[in-house]
């Protein structure tokens, strides 16, 4: 696999980069904070009966336990908790599930043989997975172990995909092992009998913890775990995580501040090789390309090889485009190529997963919906379309091939524009040096707190002190203040701190005996509908005229269509018949359909780490160093950039100033990642607006940002210095936060989680239609009538922490302060500026202008035009 692998007669060749050997267990300098806790003394009777039985079964299937698996079992049996750091396909499932299995095997109680569900043993293990798509696979893997050792355990899943009948049955009696998601666990807790139901849970296992860590769903998992610990104080908590820059922190967040545990590393060699597909004629290759469909031929050539492939695209729309393009070119592959993304109906997804497992598919075109998963050992190669966005993510995706322990992972990267070749090269470098991203945990999101309080109120109620104490056992709410607690209680009980502001409102009430309970059964039902809608915009169900479910689609997309319009879904052309009650009916048509749905979300920002690696590559290029094939191939374009403007040196901030009919454009290439650029755009945009006394629109990408201003303004180096200065940073940030629409935008998600905006999911009762209002409307009404509301406060805080994080911004500004500023005035958009300019259409923009102010300006302009037109 090393050396150049050319395929004669094809339009491309693969760059067989040096195989990048990465030893997963090797402790690298970047993760020095990890320290290994010495294994505790084994129990007296070690090896106990259970371990012997499990190992005997493993041997009968040709396996021997790895050291890290044994270590995890020992810790579990000694009553310990912890986090297992293991790459995909390393036997991590057995590591964390082995403990509970051994524990049962070692117990004296005889194992009864039975066939009925209700005669299986009561609940013991709760397995939390971030994606419902994973639940089925996990249940299968766990069942194999249970059956292998002959336990009388039932293993079932409970997710939003689970039918109502099964859920009802489970509420009557939980299976021995329940595989669920953070939302479904939250839902389970919202039933009054949940305490007794969950009391038997001895082990809670959180799979793919790295995926949940920096999300609200992760906090939801923390809250669920806290509840389980309250119900059973001797609960053992285990997590599984792929490689992260901050594994120790991930461990601490999972266990909360009151527990100690162990971080266990799998010592398995796992090699990752990153290769790129390079277009033959790079000169004619667009910078901001059309989703890389130009690379279709070489991708098809790769898919023609024996074995099965996963083709990862970054968005659901891209999977639709690629799926269609592949089948158009190879119609005879019908049935061998499948599509998989989160908006497809569960049955369709499960079919695809099953066929993939059985090795019956040549190719699955997918999104991150197949990033994770336990058992796709039949995948032979992985193709990544477009930017990997992060070093850890690319490693993870590569890990989907060579899924068996010890086997090498291999990923072939397909650029959608030339710059991505630089990214691939940079990502490979990052993997080789183990510069892997960290994910920061969230700090006390109040919307989720409000949601959780209603959940617990519905699930049997709570009293103040115990609940406060329980919340403080989570990492997210460990520092919850009494004031915040009082606000949250006030909010759910009265809507706000003042009685007058919210008459008639109450979600929880006092039961007269000092406990808070849900106000009514109707309120509990409504609340359950809104739990679990943390992600996702308003969606409508999509069915065929024959009643077949196809999946879900964003309301905003369907809203733009008229009956008779055609679009592509799940790889087929469909025509809209009508939309009624959150359900869109379509009929299949044979003709080619035009538009591909746009789904919100799913666009990962590039990590700062990868952006920085890209910058280093560019600096090398400036100095004439082109280390690998990718860089050599992209060299002509980089030279063009240098000729028209400049290539930024390592300690240089390049600013391009350019004029079009739209106005004055300033492109700043900071290479700090999209999130930082968003913050910079808001800050610098706000300052520029003040300086120019004209509106400014900031657009940001992973590489830089554009400031567009319709009025002419000349900015020299000293002016830039003051625009980028750290002076008055906090004041300016707060001012631009109040002026801009950032908080308003952030409020969307908060409104949904806090239950302001009702779930418009298919199946929601019709009576909810009188309760529909957009989060924007809520934002305005709150701002006008209850400006002190903490949810508004949270929106501002989330913007400050996530988009405009002061520390990170300050760091970025200090970093820029030490750079020399290079201002160029290219005659046209340069290769580096073009993608940012094109991004504005994708609405990655910030306006530093109040909504009212903006409308006033636009109305005034219209009126002026009208006066001028008047006869």
């Amino acid at each position: 696999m090393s050396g150049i692998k050319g395929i004669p007669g094809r339009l491309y060749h693969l760059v067989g980069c040096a195989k990048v050997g990465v030893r997963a267990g090797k402790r690298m300098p970047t993760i020095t904070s990890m320290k290994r806790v010495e294994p505790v003394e084994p129990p007296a009777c070690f090896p106990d009966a259970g371990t012997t039985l499990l190992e005997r079964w493993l041997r009968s299937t040709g396996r021997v336990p790895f050291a890290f698996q044994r270590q995890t079992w020992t810790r579990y049996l000694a009553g310990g908790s912890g986090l297992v750091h293991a790459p995909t396909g390393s036997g991590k499932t057995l590591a964390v599930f082995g403990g509970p299995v051994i524990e049962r095997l070692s117990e004296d109680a005889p194992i009864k043989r039975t066939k009925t569900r209700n005669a299986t043993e009561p609940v013991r293990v709760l397995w939390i997975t971030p994606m419902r798509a994973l639940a089925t696979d996990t249940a299968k893997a766990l069942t194999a172990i249970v059956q292998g050792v002959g336990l009388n355990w039932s293993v079932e899943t409970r997710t939003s995909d689970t039918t109502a009948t099964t859920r009802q049955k489970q509420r009557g009696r939980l299976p021995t092992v329940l595989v669920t998601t953070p939302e479904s666990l939250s839902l389970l807790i919202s039933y009054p009998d949940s305490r007794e139901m969950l009391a038997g849970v001895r082990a809670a296992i959180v799979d793919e913890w790295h995926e949940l860590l920096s999300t609200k769903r992760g906090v939801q998992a923390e809250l669920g775990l806290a509840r389980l610990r309250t119900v059973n104080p001797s609960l053992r908590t285990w997590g599984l995580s792929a490689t992260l820059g901050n594994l120790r922190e991930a461990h601490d967040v999972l266990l909360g501040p009151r527990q100690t545990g162990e971080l266990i590393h799998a010592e398995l060699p796992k090699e990752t090789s990153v290769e790129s597909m390079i277009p033959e004629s790079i000169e004619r290759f667009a910078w901001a390309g059309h989703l890389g469909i130009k690379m279709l031929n070489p991708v098809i050539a790769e898919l023609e090889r024996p074995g099965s492939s996963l083709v990862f695209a970054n968005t659901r729309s891209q999977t639709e485009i690629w799926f269609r393009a592949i089948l158009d070119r190879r119609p005879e592959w019908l049935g061998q190529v499948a599509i998989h993304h989160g908006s497809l109906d569960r049955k369709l997804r499960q079919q695809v997963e099953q066929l993939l497992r059985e090795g019956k598919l040549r190719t699955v075109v997918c999104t991150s919906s197949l990033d994770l998963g336990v058992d796709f050992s039949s995948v032979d190669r992985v193709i990544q379309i477009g930017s990997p966005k992060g070093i850890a993510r690319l490693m993870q995706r590569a890990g989907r091939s060579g899924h068996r322990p010890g086997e090498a992972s291999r990923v072939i990267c397909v650029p959608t524009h030339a710059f991505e070749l630089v990214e691939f090269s940079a990502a490979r470098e990052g993997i080789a040096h183990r510069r892997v991203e960290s994910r920061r945990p969230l700090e006390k999101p109040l919307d989720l707190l409000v949601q959780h309080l209603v959940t617990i109120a519905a699930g049997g109620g709570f009293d103040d002190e115990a609940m406060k104490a329980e919340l403080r056992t989570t990492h997210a709410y460990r520092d919850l203040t009494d004031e915040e607690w009082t606000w949250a209680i006030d909010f759910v009980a009265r809507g706000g701190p003042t009685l007058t502001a919210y008459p008639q409102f109450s979600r929880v009430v006092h039961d007269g005996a000092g406990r808070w309970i849900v106000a009514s059964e109707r309120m509990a039902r409504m609340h359950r509908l809104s739990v679990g809608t943390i992600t996702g915009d308003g969606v409508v169900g999509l069915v065929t005229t024959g009643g077949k479910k196809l999946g879900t689609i964003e309301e905003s997309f369907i809203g733009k269509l008229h009956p008779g319009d055609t679009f592509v879904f799940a790889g087929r052309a469909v025509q809209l018949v009508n939309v009624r009650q959150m359900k869109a009916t379509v009929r299949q048509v044979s003709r080619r359909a035009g538009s591909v749905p746009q789904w919100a979300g799913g666009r990962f920002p590039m990590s700062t780490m990868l952006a920085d690696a890209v910058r280093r590559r560019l600096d090398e290029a400036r100095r004439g160093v082109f280390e690998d094939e990718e860089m050599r191939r992209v060299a002509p374009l980089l030279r063009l950039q240098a000729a028209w403007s400049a290539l930024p040196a390592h300690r240089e901030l390049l600013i391009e100033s350019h004029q079009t009919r739209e106005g004055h454009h300033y492109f700043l290439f900071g290479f700090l990642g999209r999130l930082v650029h968003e913050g910079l755009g808001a800050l610098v945009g706000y300052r520029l607006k003040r300086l120019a006394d004209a509106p400014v629109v900031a657009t940001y990408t992973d590489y830089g940002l554009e400031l567009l201003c319709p009025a002419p303004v000349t900015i020299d180096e000293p002016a830039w210095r003051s625009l980028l200065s750290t002076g008055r940073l906090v004041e300016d940030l707060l001012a631009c936060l109040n002026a801009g629409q950032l908080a308003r935008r952030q409020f969307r998600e908060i409104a949904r989680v806090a239950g302001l905006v009702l779930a418009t999911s298919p199946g929601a009762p019709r009576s909810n239609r009188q309760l529909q209002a957009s989060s924007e409307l809520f934002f305005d009404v709150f701002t006008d009538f209850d400006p002190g509301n903490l949810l508004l406060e949270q929106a501002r805080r989330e913007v400050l922490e996530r988009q405009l994080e002061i520390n990170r911004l300050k760091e970025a500004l200090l970093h820029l302060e030490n750079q020399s500023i290079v201002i160029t005035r290219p005659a046209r958009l340069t290769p580096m500026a073009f993608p940012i300019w094109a991004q504005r259409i994708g609405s990655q923009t910030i306006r530093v202008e109040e909504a009212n102010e903006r409308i006033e300006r636009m109305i005034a302009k219209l009126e002026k035009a009208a006066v001028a037109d008047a006869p």
Partner: protein
Amino acid sequence: MNPPSIQFHGQSFQLLPDRALHWPAARTLIIADLHLGKAHTFRSRGLPVPAGTTERDLARLSALIEAFRPERLLVLGDLVHAREAESTLDLLCEWRAGWVALEVAVAPGNHDRHVQAESLSRACRLLESPYVEAGIEWSHHPQEKPARPIVAGHVHPTVRLNDFDGSGVRVPCFVVDPNQIILPSFGTFTGGCAMPRAEGRRLFAAAAGRVVETR
């Protein structure tokens, strides 16, 4: 030139920035989709909307009456939002008491069905359907192809204003077709629906204290 006047089937109307229509010849003020008590309805069903929107809307209405001194207020439907809003009718009656001489007539809309007709008639006169005056039909629902001139509400029309960078923002608007006028919703706590442009259709944005035709 603000507020602009339009001619519609022999009658002259003023389009007011506060999302109302003024008919000077008939000494009438016309509004649609007040959705009184919508916030109240939300609160009683567990959604925390601060109080004050109903009061603000009634105050806006008072200000308009103060300014134009009409003899009649014509409401083109959706005066109230839902069943729970019945108690806000008390507020409406209280408000009515301040304008004894004013006639309030309502062409009922789909939301008004949730409230007993008797309760509604405490505060206003209900018009029969269809109600025609000056050769114009006054109703809640607009029509696809109106057979006669019609003034209606119901859809909460909005129009997109385009900014210099190609982006846009939606604001409430009046829709003036050759045979139909659609009023923006009067209520503060109401959403909107984008209106497509069409042959012969004029869209007047009502925002920032002005009414301006958009092109």
